[in-house]
């Protein structure tokens, strides 16, 4: 490894792998290292099942769990928005051809004491118990406005008098359509996918764009706006790692990272044991630079192994349930996601549910109780509380560009925003998708 590179990337989590791929595609000479023997870091899917049990200090799973090789368990639960940023990145970079996706069967929202399906078509909307008859009418008018909204076309703003996307708050828009608080809760949390209510007093344009993303994603496949890759989320970093390798990136796993070498306040290399690889830039996740990040919060996540689907979801083999903060007197939402053997992540007949939220108290596990209660009997539960780190600076000074920890959101939109921001800070340019050349085998793209 005693060579000179343009960039050294540390850690093979999803963000680092996307960045590595983008840098290699842009013609940079990239060395990509991980201290672990496997790809994916925190975004890996754990297989076989005994590795997951070992990780949590438990004895090997009993035989009822089936073939342990059939399990690929994510540590961080997320879905892809069908029309979202990550799917765009996957398509533009051609990484789609390394992966197979399934559409998530349904999206549910918690209201009062039970869950209701987020309607995916007209028929479901008509019979939905989320709103009364008159409220449905008002909500329909609001949706027509959201659907037609374009932030650069004042003609599309007319339905709400005096509206403009920056100075009008979302509260004002909801008030104009006279929506009740349950509908607002449902719209802000299950459609716009906000984790708290701060958005209500912020510019309405952003919220309307999020609602459009939801509806455009839903329009793609009809059942829900979400996609999930076969064999688990760990396939995503691997796909981007392959992209990076195809464009010349060098991969080294199982490499202890002992020092990031700086001279005059700028990075000049990375030392592993007695070897030092030279470079002009380093890109890494927070775990490689504990003294250059700050803790800004915590996420609690419970991985639950079930031998049955979740009640009241029509036995869906995959689903998402959002518990809006207000429904359970919290400040941030609780997310429940469910995938199963049909996604090649569990042995036949098994399901993996994940319950997660941003930590607000000293007893994180108690905070996710409303989500755990929806699951029914749980065969095995693994709870983690993970700190969320942010870099102390933007990296342009010392040329060390650090990603943020994966947050509690249920999808990859913030993940992609962080990646694109890091790429912009590191290269001074927005990523140029046209740099992805057409190679042999591109015929299906």
């Amino acid at each position, binding site marked *: 490894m005693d060579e000179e590179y343009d960039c050294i990337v540390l850690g093979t989590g999803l963000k680092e792998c996307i960045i590595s791929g983008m840098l290699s595609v842009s013609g940079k000479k990239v060395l990509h290292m991980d201290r672990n023997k496997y790809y994916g870091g925190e975004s890996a899917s754990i297989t076989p099942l005994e590795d997951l049990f070992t990780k949590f200090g438990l004895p090997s799973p009993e035989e009822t769990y089936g073939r342990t090789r059939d399990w690929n368990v994510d540590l961080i639960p997320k879905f892809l928005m069908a029309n979202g940023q990550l799917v765009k990145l996957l*398509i533009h970079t051609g990484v789609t*051809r390394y992966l*197979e996706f399934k559409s998530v069967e349904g999206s549910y929202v918690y209201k009062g004491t039970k869950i209701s399906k987020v309607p995916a078509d007209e028929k479901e909307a008509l019979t939905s118990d989320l709103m009364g008859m008159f409220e449905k009418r008002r909500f329909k008018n609001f949706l027509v406005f959201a659907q037609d909204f374009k932030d650069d076309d004042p003609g599309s703003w007319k339905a709400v008098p005096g509206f403009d996307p920056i100075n009008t708050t979302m509260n004002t828009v909801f008030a104009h359509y006279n929506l009740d608080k349950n509908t607002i809760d449902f719209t802000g949390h299950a459609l716009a996918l906000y984790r708290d209510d701060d958005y209500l007093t912020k510019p309405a344009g952003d919220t309307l764009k999020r609602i459009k993303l939801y509806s*455009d994603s839903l329009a793609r496949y009809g059942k829900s706006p979400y996609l999930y890759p076969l064999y688990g989320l760990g396939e995503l970093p691997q796909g981007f790692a392959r992209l990076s390798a195809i464009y010349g990136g060098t991969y080294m796993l199982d490499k202890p990272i002992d020092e990031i070498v700086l001279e005059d306040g700028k990075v000049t290399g990375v030392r592993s044991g007695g070897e030092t690889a030279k470079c002009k830039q380093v890109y890494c996740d927070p775990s490689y630079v504990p003294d250059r990040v700050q803790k800004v919060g915590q996420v609690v996540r419970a991985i639950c192994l079930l031998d049955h689907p979740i009640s009241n979801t029509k036995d869906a083999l995959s689903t998402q349930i959002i518990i809006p903060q207000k429904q359970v007197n919290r400040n941030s939402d609780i997310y429940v996601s469910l995938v199963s053997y049909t996604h090649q992540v569990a042995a036949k007949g098994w399901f993996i549910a994940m319950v997660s939220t941003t930590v607000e108290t000293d007893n994180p596990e108690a905070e996710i109780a409303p989500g755990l209660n929806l699951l029914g009997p749980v065969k095995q539960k693994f709870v983690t509380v993970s700190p969320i780190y942010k870099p102390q600076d933007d990296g342009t000074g010392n040329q060390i560009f650090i990603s943020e920890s994966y947050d509690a959101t249920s999808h990859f939109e913030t993940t992609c925003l962080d990646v694109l921001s890091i790429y912009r800070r590191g290269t001074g340019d927005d990523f140029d998708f046209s740099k992805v050349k057409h190679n*042999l085998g591109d015929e299906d793209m």
Partner: protein
Amino acid sequence: MLIEDNKFTGTNSERVMASVKVPEQKIILCGEYGVGKSSLFRRYATNTFVTATDRKSTLGLDHYEKVYCSGDKEVKLQLWDTGGMERVASITSSYYKFAEGAILVFALDNPDSFNILSQHLLDIVTYAENAKIFLCGNKYDLKSQIQVTDADMENFCEQCHNLISGIYKTSCKTGAGVEEMFTDIARQLSDSNRGLLYVLSMEMRELRSSGSMQNTVQSASFFTATHYAW
């Protein structure tokens, strides 16, 4: 690339309809760095050979599809190269996923590249358990330097409990044996006498190729239509 669940429960007639399309079969190249996997890929894809064995020769190689005729059946082989990841690190497990065939490649003049194949075999049976496995001794043109004998290869197959479906000797430099190998692999994969697992994986493949992220399925949506009645 999107699997439609409802098709799994489709009727037989739907399945017959689906099988009219020529199915593509993912074949992966496995083996040590420098044995000529990318050269095999290049012979297969463009029938060319590059003498320089530097890193650059692997750059940009991803996968390539070609149609073979076996009797009255057509088979589309989709050959995948490693991308050079095995040079210092290991190959991602996702490389193996969905593979219907795997070619264990070694260099006939390099016994080490042959002796380590059991490691690669283990990866294949772990991550691509339905794949048919083939053995390919490359650099057959280096006649005088050949150190791995036919008996060695047969012994290896026996030790692997006959997991290996075919043995081939190729020279990417001259092109000898390459086309013959792929033709035979295509024949073996098109063989209809394979077990139920094969039939199922064929259906999976069909379904997988039937949907695509770019082919937007416009369905009656709760949100998009302005003409819905409540």
